């Protein structure tokens, strides 16, 4: 696959609509093609913005009183006595359900942070090694990586940074582990180094500049955030922002780091919606 991918293929890839063979070929291409990766990130962002905006629209009462009775009366049928079945299968896990949004509409977060937050909503088995009882290992070890089973969880670290707050999200995604860095100020330098385990995909939006070398990527951030996809087999990964280490460890046990909250007054926040709420270390 030497030509660039068209946006229909990229959209289908994001939506999980491609046949497995084609999806694998697209994934391989994306790992080597920066323009297509950027295009993919642009489509992903457009879908997130669209979905977030549409979710703000009024959605009507879920079961207006009398609707069924009205229909049955019009067709001359008599209501049965069966209770309503469970709700219909949920829409695509890529898009948050309006019912599952927190009251008050869209989260009040800055652009990329909002995007990243939307991306981790609905993820399954998200975690990090610094969260006791993290489901990440269970997810990585388990044969089923679909978003249909297991506790829902999100993990995020909010790291104090000069000029703003940098959010780090870690989530399983299509058999790999996805790391989103959001809220990075333009011009910030993000550096990645990795060893033993495979290819790392790095995407950044809006004017970012890249320098690459074997086992190393250097990104000067534009107006957007940075997304990193790592295979679950990756043994060692480190991510720095402006010389400060944000994350370190293996894909199976990433450790989110940041300014020491006790010494410098900054905060490290984890938000995990799981049956047993974990506690930050």
């Amino acid at each position: 696959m030497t030509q660039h991918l068209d946006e229909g293929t990229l959209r289908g890839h994001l939506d999980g609509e491609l046949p497995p063979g084609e999806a694998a070929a697209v994934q391989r291409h994306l790992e080597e093609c920066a323009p297509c990766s950027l295009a993919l990130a642009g489509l992903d962002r457009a879908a997130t913005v669209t979905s977030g905006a549409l979710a703000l629209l009024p959605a009507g009462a879920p079961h207006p009183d009398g609707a069924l009775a009205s229909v049955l009366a019009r067709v001359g049928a008599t209501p049965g006595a069966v209770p309503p079945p469970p709700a219909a299968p949920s829409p695509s896990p890529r898009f948050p359900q309006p019912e599952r949004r927190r009251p008050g509409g869209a989260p009040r977060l800055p652009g990329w942070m909002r995007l990243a937050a939307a991306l981790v909503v609905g993820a399954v088995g998200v975690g990090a090694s610094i969260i006791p009882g993290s489901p990440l290992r269970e997810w990585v070890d388990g044969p089923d990586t679909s978003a249909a089973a297991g506790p829902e969880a999100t993990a995020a670290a909010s790291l104090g940074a000069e000029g703003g707050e940098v959010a780090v999200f870690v989530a399983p995604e299509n058999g790999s582990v996805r790391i989103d860095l959001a809220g990075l100020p333009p011009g910030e330098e993000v550096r990645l180094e990795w060893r033993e385990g495979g290819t790392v995909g790095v995407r950044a939006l809006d004017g970012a500049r890249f320098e690459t070398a074997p086992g190393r990527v250097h990104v000067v951030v534009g107006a957007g955030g940075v997304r990193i996809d790592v295979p679950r087999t990756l043994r060692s990964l480190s991510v720095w922002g402006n010389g400060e280490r944000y994350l370190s460890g293996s894909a199976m046990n990433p450790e989110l780091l940041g300014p020491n909250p006790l010494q410098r007054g900054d905060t490290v926040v984890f938000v995990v919606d799981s049956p047993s709420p974990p506690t930050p270390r």
Partner: protein
Amino acid sequence: VEFEQLFHQVYPSLLRYCHRLAGDPDVAEDMAQEAFVRLHRNGVTGPVPALRVWLFRVATRLIQDRGRAVRNRARLLEENPVLPWEAPDPEDGVERDRTVWRVRRILERLDGRDRELLLMREEGFSYREMAEVVGVAPGSIGTLLARAQKRFTTMFEKEGGP
């Protein structure tokens, strides 16, 4: 009884889709119920996913027909003005939220097919199901959806985002 089960499974999603597509809760309720009435009267049967597509297709056509009628009436009023036309008041009733009003306006400015695809995607339709409702080849849905999302995002951000 099967009809009632189908109603409970599909009606909430169909009503939400109709509401967003038509922009009017009363119209949405009428169209969603009318689709079920037609399903019953025509004796349409089959697995739930197929019936769901059928219901969405019928409701979409009903709203399209109604939209044409409304536009014709608006054109007649423009040619023979009776009262000055006013934009909906963003501070009024359900649409007092200005962002909601903007989203609504952008949806109205989009091509009908773009609008339908975006809203069906929100209801979790697969590409094949969306293709059946709008009457295009499944292979073209990815491209159509991507372009619709880009058009929506461009207009939304041009108007100031959320």
